[in-house]
């Protein structure tokens, strides 16, 4: 299917055949296109990794920054120009490992950005080391005797930080993933969509088959029930899919910030006022 976000050229996609990233790419394109968002108003912000290459395959603006540092850049971009649709997208190592501190504090800010994490439970680009979400016992060239650390639970952590939108999706299920992404993008405030993504090259444990067996969609859940959401998030087998929590009331970073309290004109559209500066200087006389 063609979308307005397709890169017209015959582009060479650097992912492995069969990788879960392809589904995420096409699902996200379709989601944005169906939401009628103009590609020129979108900025995709990513870090470094296999997942983080995704903006390369989009016809849109992008800021492909440093490993682990997508969120601060995305927050700032949205802050100076709230009229943009900002998506911060990277891998699990990038967002929860190197970028862990930004993950925490961005959630505290609640900027109106969508945070999509391709969670393949492994470091793909650097060839197969454990990521924060790797499961116990996972063997790698570094973790030769298997991972001994507690896997990072992004949903539970996000909830404990009072994230305003928290969801888990599964890459291969494009239909449901699209529904989740649609709601995430529409959500006003920070939204986390952790997408389980099979890595066919380096994760021979958490395969397509594994996910089929070990995931399940949430049923009959009131997404505004945080206590219950936490309960569901802590569940690890099966991993629950769907929107686990949403708080539509929470004010965003941009609307709360003093700069936008009285005036909503995007910062970059406001013009320099030499009189005000002169007045401040005068106060030092």
């Amino acid at each position: 299917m063609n979308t307005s976000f397709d890169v017209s050229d015959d582009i060479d996609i650097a992912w492995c055949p069969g990788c879960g990233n392809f589904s995420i790419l096409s699902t996200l394109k379709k989601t944005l296109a169906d939401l009628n968002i103009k590609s020129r108003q979108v900025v995709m912000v990513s870090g470094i990794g296999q997942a983080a290459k995704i903006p390369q395959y989009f016809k849109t603006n992008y800021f492909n920054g440093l490993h682990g540092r997508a969120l601060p850049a995305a927050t700032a971009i949205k802050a100076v120009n709230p009229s943009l649709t900002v998506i911060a997208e990277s891998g699990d190592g990038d967002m929860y490992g190197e970028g862990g501190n930004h993950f925490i504090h961005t959630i505290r800010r609640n900027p109106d950005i969508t945070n999509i994490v391709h969670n393949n439970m492994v470091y793909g680009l650097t060839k197969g080391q454990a990521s924060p979400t790797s499961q116990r016992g996972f063997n790698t060239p570094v973790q030769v005797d298997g991972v001994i650390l507690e896997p990072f639970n992004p949903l539970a952590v996000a909830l404990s930080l009072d994230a305003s939108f928290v969801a888990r999706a599964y890459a291969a299920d494009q239909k449901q993933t699209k529904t989740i992404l649609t709601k995430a993008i529409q959500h006003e405030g920070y939204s986390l969509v952790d997408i389980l993504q099979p890595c066919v090259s380096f994760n021979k444990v958490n395969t397509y088959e594994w996910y089929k067996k070990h995931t399940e969609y949430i049923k009959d859940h009131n997404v505004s029930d945080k206590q219950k959401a936490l309960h569901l998030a802590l569940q690890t087998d099966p991993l629950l899919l769907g929107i686990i929590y949403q708080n539509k009331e929470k004010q965003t970073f941009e609307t709360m910030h003093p700069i936008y309290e009285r005036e909503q004109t995007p910062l970059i559209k406001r013009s320099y006022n030499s009189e005000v500066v002169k007045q401040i200087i005068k106060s030092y006389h």
Partner: protein
Amino acid sequence: MRSENQDISIIIAGEAGQGIQSVEQLFVTLLHHMNYYVFSTKEYMSRVRGGSNSTEIRASLLPVNSFVDRIDILIILDEKAFDHVSHRVTDDTIIIGDDRMVSNISHPHVFSFDFTGSAKKIGNLVYANTIAIGLLASLFHISSKELQEHITSFFSSKSKQIIDDNIQAMHKGISFAQTLISSIQIPEKIKNDLNNTNSLLLLNGTQAIGLGALAGGVNFISSYPMSPSTGVLTFLASNGKKTNVFVEQAEDEIAAINMAVGAWYAGARALVTTSGGGFALMGEGLSLAAMTETPIVVHIAQRPGPATGLPTRTEQGDLQLALHTGHGEFPRLIYAPGTLQEGFFLTKRSFDLADRYQIPVILLSDQYFVDSKYQTSSFLDLDKKPTHHIVKTTEHYKRYENNISGVSPRGIPGYGSGYVCVDSDEHDEAGRITENSDVRKQMVEKRLRKMQQIRKQSIPPTLYGSAQYETLLIGWGSTVHTIEEARKQMDKEKISFLHFSQVYPLHPKTKTYLKKANRIITIENNATAQFDQVLLEETGISADAHILQFTGHPFSVETLLQKIPETIQALEEE
């Protein structure tokens, strides 16, 4: 007190939290309004209460702007204070303090008053500060009426009770002063004429940089608190709403610089303020700005390292870090303002040149610079709006168009019909990842090519003294006034002083200046003569000797008056 001085140096010494800062603020503005030239600087410990801090206030009939060791009047606010500054006390010093605090000092000119008792009687220990101000003001020929007006306006936001108590304290101070007046010769204030100090601004380095940033069109600052750089953040926070500056305290320095790069990408003019340790975390972010050719301005207020070092003190130890940090190779520009004018104009200029050349610009100040206050002429030429070098994109816009200058027209997302794609990986003109080695080579050359134009925009060093010199003193950044005050006093000896406010790249004239000298001495507030290395790299010439100080304190005029001749002599004997 030595009477030959046209200026008086007052030191107020006491614990953190005792109110030295408000004495300084109140008294310095008072002197300013009363047409004295003033200078003040503080040294303080890395703690909130207790310890030993001091502030120097110089008042003069001629402009003053540098630190001296000399103490004409010493005001002592706690028991430990005298020991803290005693190495600077001479027989001419006049020492004033509470009975309890000066009783053990054996010195010809100790004057004790019952500051504490009187303050308590008025109702609060803090009034001791106002008593001291009353006392000092009297000595400076300031009438009680003038003083009262000043105090009233200073405390105007407080309750009537507080204002009244302060005035009562002030009178107490004035009465204390009577016993002193005969012992102290204070020059009378400047007669009111066109040259009076009221036409001048009174501000410190932090404020000069903050105002320069505003004039440079800053509208975003993301930073993490770190002494002595935090002042710039709080300055913009307090002025931010009326000037449209988006202020954000980041969770760490890495977030700070990545936010700033993001903000510039989206069209803002962003600043980051930090100190050496914070900056040491920003190397990767700086490299990102360079690779994506996104402008960035970083202010580093230096303090002594390594590591946490001396958090509240001064040093010029991070020049080589500023010059070389960030992996990979890319152009950059480093300013090190010395005067307040430079603080203002170079900050403003940082934004202009960062924007114009899409490069990192680093402003290198230090604790001494940011915390020193004096008068300077008003900042002019403020009507011109800062030029934003941003283009409206067209449909086939390429962010990294490879042109002769190396500076590709910069678009921002959402403005125009193109896409703005920037990449941390090596990329082609459109901003997409490439591993093509020809494109790689072209892109490296494109980025480095900008350096040619940046060099052309270099600020030349300022020569103080005659163009005919034998000895050339070289300084950079915050030491300008101190070196110059010392040099002036040695004027006859064919010594000139060359000051650099742009420390990289150096203006081509530099070499000419260096070649003319028989001997070159760099004076630096560090241990390894870092600027001399820049001189060598940029001109092939290096200094014959260095005067270095790395105690955490700024040079004093006296130290230089001693070290400069010593160093010249040592060179002659070689």
